[in-house]
């Protein structure tokens, strides 16, 4: 087979794309320049019939930017659509577009449904009023779907761990030398220094992030909330103590902490498991208090809810914490259905550990602010217990900033995971996660660019998406 070129038969579009991009860059530059050079319009102008379209140089520049942007978007879309239809006929771009087909379908479905019903979906629905938020959400969901479908081996073209002879460090589009029946015939984004497919590794890397980052952030939030609420609400000695602890962890340079925590020797001592026992207990505590505070006055309902929620969680908790052959081995082997490799567990625990103090500080600040409100006083004067006030009166009203921070924090966790991979900490060496791939790729970066750049841009776009999503959410939640 011939090697694939970048755009194949749709190469005729390339000059147009370059032109559009050039125009876009130029118009943006002019736009920014004009805004600095020309004075701002007077805020008040008397015009008959409200806002009108004036045609000053500023407006012209804005128009130009919009036009260039539209042209670029249209061209990119046509690459995508043509690629989808023509597949490898449209070169590497086309082939990749086709490989991502399940992701496109999922995204289109998600967006149509969400925009259709956005008025009924609360804050999530309002997100679709903000272009920034939509772009961010789109980027995030692209990688989420990629991760999920990738986990089912849908998008990848080759086994991310398999080495194919003769493809070591080969450039994108190189054809396999002697492909088997049914094999995909090219390395779309080339091969790395162990002759593995860069494209498939990048896709698989998304799953590594998607399976750890949101969950770890969620646990960090559980810990931060469960400790931050009482610290902010009660204040006093408890607050001093907890804040001291939080500051202690925050004063630790993260990288040092990782180097100390995420080593095989530490895993041997069982320390990560002890930490897991403590950290994973927080969701249990959280839900126990949450339910108990709500149904305190109705014992029958209380026990029902507690049993329904806590029992499954408790079993899950024991299964996760338990590890045969290690120091924490309480359950008989039959019951221990979930097995988390020590490496992953220690990464997970460390990430939760370094994230929780920041969440703690945010929640504490919010609780201190909200506890001065009259509805909290009203709850106090009708004799509500502190935990009810914290969880049902304070927490729901702190949700806006917390949701925004949640998005930002997933992004931050993604970066942290990348850092861990970059230093080869915790995850197995052949793991396809983006940090490890970047680390491997950088060693030969002076000669071969293609192994390091795809995972780098993947990570960049995902974190960027999360940041934009958080910005969009912040903007929309402030509008209410």
């Amino acid at each position: 087979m011939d090697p694939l070129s970048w755009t194949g038969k749709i190469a005729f579009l390339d000059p147009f794309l370059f032109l559009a991009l050039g125009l876009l860059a130029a118009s943006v530059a002019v736009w920014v320049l004009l805004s600095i050079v020309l004075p701002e319009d007077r805020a008040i102008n008397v015009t008959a019939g409200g806002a009108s379209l004036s045609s000053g140089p500023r407006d012209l520049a804005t128009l130009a930017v919009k036009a260039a942007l539209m042209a670029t978007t249209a061209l990119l879309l046509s690459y995508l659509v043509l690629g989808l239809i023509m597949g490898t006929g449209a070169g590497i771009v086309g082939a990749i577009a086709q490989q991502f087909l399940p992701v496109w379908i999922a995204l289109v479905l998600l967006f149509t449904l969400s925009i259709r019903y956005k008025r009924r979906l609360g804050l999530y629905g309002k997100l679709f009023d903000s272009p920034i938020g939509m772009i961010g959400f789109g980027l995030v969901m692209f990688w989420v779907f990629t991760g999920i479908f990738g986990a089912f081996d849908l998008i990848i073209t080759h086994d991310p761990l398999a080495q194919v002879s003769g493809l070591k460090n080969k450039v994108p589009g190189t054809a396999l030398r002697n492909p088997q029946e049914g094999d995909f015939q090219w390395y779309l984004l080339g091969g790395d220094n162990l002759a593995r497919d860069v494209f498939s590794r990048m896709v698989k890397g998304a799953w590594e992030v998607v399976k750890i980052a949101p969950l770890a952030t969620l646990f960090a939030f559980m810990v931060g909330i469960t400790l931050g609420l009482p610290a902010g609400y009660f204040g006093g000695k408890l607050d001093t103590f907890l804040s001291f602890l939080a500051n202690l962890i925050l004063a630790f340079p993260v990288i040092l902490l990782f180097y100390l925590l995420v080593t095989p020797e530490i895993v041997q001592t069982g320390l990560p498991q002890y930490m897991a026992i403590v950290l994973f207990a927080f969701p249990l505590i959280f839900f126990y208090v949450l339910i108990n505070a709500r149904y305190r006055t109705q014992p029958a309902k209380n026990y029902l809810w507690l049993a329904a929620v806590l029992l499954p969680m408790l079993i899950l908790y024991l299964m996760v914490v338990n590890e045969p052959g290690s120091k924490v081995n309480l359950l008989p082997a039959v019951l221990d259905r979930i097995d988390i490799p020590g490496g992953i567990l220690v990464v997970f625990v460390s990430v939760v550990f370094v994230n929780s103090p920041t969440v703690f500080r945010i929640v504490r600040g919010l609780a201190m602010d909200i506890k001065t409100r009259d509805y909290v006083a009203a709850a106090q004067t009708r004799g509500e217990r502190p935990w009810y006030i914290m969880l049902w009166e304070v927490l729901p009203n702190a949700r806006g900033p917390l949701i925004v921070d949640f998005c930002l924090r997933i992004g931050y966790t993604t970066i942290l995971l990348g850092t861990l991979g970059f230093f080869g900490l915790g995850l197995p060496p052949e793991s396809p996660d983006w940090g490890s791939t970047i680390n491997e790729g950088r060693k030969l970066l002076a000669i071969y660019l293609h192994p390091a750049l795809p995972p780098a841009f993947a990570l960049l776009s995902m974190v960027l998406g999360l940041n934009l999503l958080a910005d969009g959410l912040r903007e929309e939640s402030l509008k209410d």
Partner: protein
Amino acid sequence: MGLFILRRSGVMILTALCLTFIVFSLTNLYPNLEKLAKTQGNFRMTDEAVASWLDKNGYSQPMAVKYGQWLGVLPGWTYDSDDGVTGRCIVGVVTETEAGEFPRFCGILQGDWGHSTVLQKDVSDVVWERLGNTLRLMGWVLLLMVPSALIIGVLAGMREGSVTDRSLSTVSILTTATPEYVSGVVFIAIFTSSTVGLKWFKGSATAATENPTFENFFLPVLTIALYGMGYIARMTRASMTEVMTAQYIRTARLKGVSFPKIVLKHALRNALIAPFTVIMLQFPWLLNGVVIVETLFNYKGFGWILVQAAGNNDIELLLAISVVSVFVVLVTQLISDIGYVFLNPRIRIS
């Protein structure tokens, strides 16, 4: 004010003690010691041999005692064997009478930081030399990052929603989403790679420890600065937009103060109070970036030896590095507290 600094310093020392103890315990866990014994002795040591090696080298004492000795508040251990006396503060094997001549305490308080097993040098020499390299890097980073971040933040925040705001905000979001190991890789690919051809800079900063030039030093500085810059700029912008909508800015505007003067005289000081704390609290993250960038560009500084020490189980060196970095972080926090009070007259005069 004096009392305030005193109290904060007290808290700082307490924090430092707690943190060093944690680091000490983590590095002195049994599997680490076992590995140390095997690297120092030989890899096929039996368990008994390991135990006796640890015994001889004072590692089998209780953790708290070891910590006290390392700190220099407890007398160093001695070990009598048939060959003579060895001990923490004793160089080589000596007789009992000679042993009396060595000091009894030799911890970090006495300036004895121990010996690095990887570099085969005294830890204090290594740390000070490498710290110098890193401080130079950090200095340039701060010089580049802080002013540009503040300028971007203030320019973006002074007119919320304007073109300048939107373009600068996009830039700062982009930089916060790009960790050092991504931007570093991209920069190396674009500016140094032989395949693309833009050979503007050097991909390695090893030479910069001796002879820093723009060519070999700019990329590492830029890489660290860029990631922190976006964050500080966004904080500054947020603070600036908040200040610009405050009542007293309207008062100033309706007093007839011109826009540049409003920004410089009325808004700036109020807007900088919040980011100041942020900049100072950035230090733990900055250290993170330093380690990544020093590894990426092979710049032999503080972060580089951290990786070496941790990778090779060099306990004494790792401890020293932790102490120094924790100390740097805590001192910046102290400065941030004091600076906050100083900048904010509401707290200063009350």
